């Protein structure tokens, strides 16, 4: 596809359940980001993947959050034992390895609601 895609677009879950969010980056983009946007707040950096390098996980808020990426393709963000404060829009972005942030493209986001 032409852009970054994410699925599902909306997810409602019960507190304590695990959820998995998916991101398909733009083909050829080696850098991939996950951000979280809680209501009324800016985007929070969660994790960054660059090619085969070790990911930068410094933004993950707790050990309930994890993310994986297979090569330079799909990434999944997993939240275990969800809590109500995890409710947010989760955004994925990808960019070219040689490009700066001006080449970063965002997906439409997954809106997560934890009841």
């Amino acid at each position, binding site marked *: 596809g032409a*852009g*970054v895609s994410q699925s599902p677009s909306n997810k409602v879950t019960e507190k304590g359940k695990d959820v998995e969010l998916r991101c398909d980056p733009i083909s050829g983009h080696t850098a991939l*980001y996950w*951000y979280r946007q809680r209501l*009324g*707040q*800016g*985007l*929070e*950096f969660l994790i*960054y993947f*660059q090619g085969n390098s070790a990911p*930068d996980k*410094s*933004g993950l808020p707790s050990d309930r959050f994890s993310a994986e990426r297979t090569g330079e393709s799909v990434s999944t963000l997993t939240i275990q034992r969800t809590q109500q404060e995890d409710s947010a829009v989760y*955004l994925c*972005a990808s960019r070219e390895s040689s490009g*700066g*942030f*001006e080449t*970063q*493209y*965002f*997906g*439409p986001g997954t809106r997560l609601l934890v009841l």
Partner: protein
Amino acid sequence: AQSVSQHNHHVILSEAASLELGCNYSYGGTVNLFWYVQYPGQHLQLLLKYFSGDPLVKGIKGFEAEFIKSKFSFNLRKPSVQWSDTAEYFCAVPVGYNKLIFGAGTRLAVHP
């Protein structure tokens, strides 16, 4: 720690009014600055950027921003807004090569 502050969380304007959205950052190193926009139902997209040189930068759709180093500011401006400018606007600054720090955003509503 680096941070980005946006002063106005909600702005309501009539068409043709002038717009200025404030953005202040705290970062001691070389500064690159960005404004992103998210139109209703659309993806977040880059509006304009500052890397170096002329502190007045122009972006898409008639927007511009001025980098004032002494004030640690990068305010977004548009002389005459349109209804189609209704959106949420985010100021951002990169930290190193890996991360963007975003402000909390400003929701702009333009009434016809």
